[in-house]
């Protein structure tokens, strides 16, 4: 409770302390200062990971066609589902439909992976699959909000915003939470917003779904007609202009904080464009992520940028890829989508590992729900929030593990069920945050990401 008080007091001051510290010392003191809302904070518990890269597969990739192998589904294809379908369904579905792809076991762990992910299959010994995740909302918008904010009923802060609130950023010149190419539908910015947390914790967005990362920049990071020399002159002018009334009427903390925020902005301007410049990476690295290949170019760029941001101290990075919503045309489109991400993800994992970053970075892969084992039309599957698979890799994760099971056909999570709240609790836990005590006082009560539920999935932890 008391720490949460002082955190809040600090937050109320926002950049105040940050400002006054900057006057005296610059970066080192700034990092030591605890008064900025984004100043890095030690995790209250032992942290196994320092940051998160969330590879979000928008639309709902089919667990049954990727990682959750169901022999009975294969054998009994065309027959009716031998138990009841859920009370509420998004659309009508027919009988069981086998996966068009064959499965094989890989690695020492013997993890099942379908033909869709041949490259990722070589990395399974680094992954922990959780095959029993379940939510409740059967429509995209609600399901996206549920996995991003924990609530499909109320406006709540997103996972990344909670992490930013809890841990701050390692690099004061960069935002703590960045989302790359997110969808602006299905909840839009709410999926990476701060809701009632201080707005500084909302994600900084780079581009949106369907845009090529090649031509994108941070918003307002530069103005084409205003040269660096002009801006330097402007900043000098502003510093003196803002100091005038200070002499007249004495100091006020918000006044000097605002003056100093311009210096910080100027530093961001000088760092970020270089960070976004992926051409500065060696050719071999770019190829490792699939750059230079039309199919993998865009998601490869996202993954490579994610690594660069992770390296630079950004706390929570989300990449988005879509649109995995195959009510029909499953065979063709799931294959296309998987081929766009398979190599970039494999590149990201091996690159993080090679740089020694994987141990301290939590990589998460998953969509907003899974799909039904029953067919929609001849070649499609409907939404299924009752069972889906995510995998985790990196800091604190027990590699080479498969946790949780669905029923024989993969319709419902059945054993060792993992609710979305449990997944959230686990992510926070890995970052050294306790989902029960990471709270924010709003409208007379303390809110948390996991509401009144959530248990840490200890079996998937080292």
């Amino acid at each position: 409770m008391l720490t949460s008080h002082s955190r809040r007091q600090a937050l109320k001051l926002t950049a105040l302390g940050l400002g006054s510290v900057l006057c005296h010392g610059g970066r080192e003191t700034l990092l030591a200062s605890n008064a900025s809302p984004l100043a890095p904070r030690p995790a209250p518990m032992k942290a196994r990971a320092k940051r998160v890269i969330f590879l979000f597969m928008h639309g709902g990739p089919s667990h049954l066609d990727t990682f959750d192998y169901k022999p009975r589904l294969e054998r009994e294809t065309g027959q009716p589902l031998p138990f009841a379908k859920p009370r509420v369904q998004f659309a009508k579905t027919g009988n069981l439909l086998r996966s068009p792809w064959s499965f094989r076991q890989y690695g020492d762990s013997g993890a099942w992976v379908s033909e869709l992910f041949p490259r990722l299959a070589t990395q399974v010994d680094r992954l922990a699959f959780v095959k029993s995740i379940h939510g409740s909302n059967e429509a995209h918008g609600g399901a996206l909000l549920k996995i991003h904010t924990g609530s499909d009923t109320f406006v709540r802060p997103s996972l990344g915003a909670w992490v930013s609130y809890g841990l701050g950023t390692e690099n004061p010149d960069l935002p703590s939470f960045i989302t790359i190419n997110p969808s602006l539908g299905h909840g839009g910015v709410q999926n990476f917003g701060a809701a009632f947390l201080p707005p500084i914790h909302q994600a900084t967005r780079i581009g949106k779904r369907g845009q090529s990362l090649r031509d994108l920049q941070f918003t307002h990071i530069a103005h084409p007609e205003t040269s660096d020399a002009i801006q330097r002159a402007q900043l000098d002018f502003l510093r003196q202009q803002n100091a005038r009334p200070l002499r007249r009427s004495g100091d006020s903390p918000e006044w000097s904080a605002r003056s100093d925020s311009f210096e910080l902005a100027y530093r961001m301007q000088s760092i970020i464009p270089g960070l976004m410049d992926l051409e500065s990476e060696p050719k071999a690295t770019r190829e490792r992520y699939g750059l230079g290949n039309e199919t993998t170019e865009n998601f490869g760029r996202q993954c490579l940028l994610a690594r660069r941001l992770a390296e630079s101290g950004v706390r929570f990075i989300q990449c988005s890829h879509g649109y995995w919503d195959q009510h029909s045309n499953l065979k063709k489109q799931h294959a296309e989508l998987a081929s766009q991400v398979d190599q970039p993800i494999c590149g990201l994992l091996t690159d993080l590992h090679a740089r020694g970053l994987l141990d301290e970075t939590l990589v998460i892969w998953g969509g907003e729900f899974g799909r039904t084992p029953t067919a929609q039309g001849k070649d499609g599957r409907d939404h299924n929030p009752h069972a889906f698979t995510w995998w985790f890799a990196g800091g604190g994760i027990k590699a080479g593990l498969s946790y949780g099971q669905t029923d024989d056909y993969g319709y419902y999570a059945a054993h060792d069920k993992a609710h979305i709240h449990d997944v959230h609790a686990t992510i926070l836990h890995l970052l050294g945050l306790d989902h029960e005590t990471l709270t924010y006082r709003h409208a007379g009560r303390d809110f948390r990401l996991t509401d009144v539920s959530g248990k840490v999935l200890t079996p998937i932890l080292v």
Partner: protein
Amino acid sequence: MKRPLRNPLGLITCLVHWLVAVSAAEFETRESSAGLEIFEKSIRPALIEHCFECHSAQAKSLKGGLRLDARDLLLAGGDSGPLFDAGDPDSSLLLSALRQETLEMPPRGKLPDATIDAFQEWIELGAPTPASFQASEASVSMPSSAERHWAFRPILRVNPPRAESGHWARNPIDLFILHAMKGKGLSPSAPAKPATLIRRLSFDTIGLPPSEPQFEATRIAPHPAWYEGQIEGFLAAPQFGEHWGRKWLDLARYADTNGVDENYNFLNAWRYRDYVVRAFNRDKPFDQFLIEQIAGDLLPKIEDSHRQADQIIATGFLTLGPKMLAEQDKDKLLMDIVDEQIDVLCKTAIGMTIGCARCHDHKFDPISSEDYYAMAGIFASTRTMANTNHVSFWTETVLPNPRNLTLIKLHEASLSERETAIDQLKREPSSEENKEKIRSQEKELKALRDRGPDLPKAMAVIDGIPRDLAIHIRGNHLNQGATPIPRGVPSQISPPLPGALPARSSGRLELARWFTDDDNPLTARVMVNRIWQGYFGKGLVSTPSNFGTRGGEPSHPGLLDWLAMELVDSDWSLKHIHRLILSSSTYRQASQPRPEMARIDPDNRYYWKQNRRRLSAEGIRDSILQVCRQLDLRMEGRVDHANRNETYYRGNGEEFQSPRRSIYLPVIRGRGYDLFNTFDYSESGAHLAQRTVTTVPHQALFMLNAPLVIDAAEAMAAQLDPGSGDLTPLYRGILFRNPSPDERRLAAALQQQVKSFTEPDSKRSPVGVLIQSLIASNEFVYVD
């Protein structure tokens, strides 16, 4: 401390005040709420589980003459004397008994150390208990004594304190303020200079900088009545309704799209926005304003079609919330909508968070699940959704308008014209081309018929079939209690309803009248506090939408009640309250820091000066455009959606390019205007009681690089006489003062530098860069 405490919260507030030389009101209430939390989390459960068997009304035989099931009894102690002095755990009998040092309690075995530590911490914090643990006869489960919390007690008709010597006080507000300062070594500040005051008054009332004549008038020593005249001028300006209406729209979570899962356009939401602007401009009595928004459709019909239309439009308040339109569990969808309506209405009108009671009795305020479902029944008996299709759609009502009949006729004429044209085509010799024409025209005809005549419609609710709801156990609509709860209002908050709700209507009108009853203790207090907040940056109660036991306490309870009574007595005239505050000496004070006062009261809790405040997102944008002479002051009207369809919002942000005031830019849930997001207005999906004010580098980046700022500055530069070089009009136009000699030097140096850096064909000009820099300066965004 043997006597039962009349107001434990107040006492603890005082204690903390003495002990810790930190006087932030917020901090104090947090301390006591920390104590309350410990009570709820550890103390109460331990008492129930380990103590009540022998020490409560349920005890078969009471042991030691001690009862622990109510505050007064617990404090009184038993045969062995009092259990503790609040705030002093060291000498506590209770703790020594729990530690089994004196008595050994509980006899069956020592409690876990963590629980005993919790008792210690709770006593240290002054042993606060919630209202539900007050009276001796109270049951342990349900808060029952609402009257003990200040906000639930009737509004008192308070006489202002008597005037002391001196002439500072201009009206009763000042007497209250002065009285509270007494004996604390505090004194009020001198009035702000006229130029500062006019800028403050202008931003605070109309959200824009003053006009040149208004500003010029401050330069010659103004007549004493000058300021009063200015107040009337600003209160009468049409921009007043826009500025204060925007604050109301925050409360009403106004938006032009649905947000959440299916971001449909709210094509008719703007009518509600304009209604709010009109209501504030015309000083519509606040009780009527509220009644119309809750139940305007149920009020007697009015002949005047505009006024009748307004009554219908007003209920848009209830339908503007985000809805999970694609939720396939339609019963859940409908209950979620009801919940959202109750939440936004109670926070807005009476400053109560009632949503908790959807799943369980409110833990801190006297709202039971019965109360919640009594109110939920009213909204479940109201139709907000026109259908529950796969993607559901909300109700819209055709507005009365003398032109409607004409529009219908025009529509029919246009249909029959098209039918004739198609018949004509069919008579022509058949060909591929002819077939294609017929096909496309028939398609158009069908679309036209489906669309219907373009009659004015509003997002509005209508009454549905009245029904009572049973309690949904833990908020789950699939797990309902057996008995329906009769529709009604929160039973613990006075006044009681005059009678049962009508069987034939939802009961919304009766609910609305309950909210606006002169005896409702919350409604008037909540609203005057919001107005106060608009003029000082914080309310007399620091939690404007939470007047419950976990909210803040009023810093000036007498003043709050006096203002609330003024509101009721003036037939709910809001402008009367605005006028009172604006004409007070309290409001007119300078905002300069005074270190000797700040040492005593660092948070200006006692209003010994005005507060320096940053402009809102809208204020920043509108004044940039205004000082650069780019702002379009046309009022009201439809939102320019990039794509005017009834389904998804598909705009690309072009609609934010409009030069109109910010209130008329569309509010797009899920993809808000980046300027709004940057300057702390990012969530339009939920009731917003107070915008946070942050200072972050993204805001500086915006000022340095956003085309909005640069284009406005360069456009203004282009209008200036290039030869003149006179900086005075610039500083007066942007910062409302003359430049000092060193500022002139500074500005000249900047322009010189820019000139030397820019290429001849650059779109940046030295004076444009100067204008942009003045806009980016602190002075521009802060109101003193």
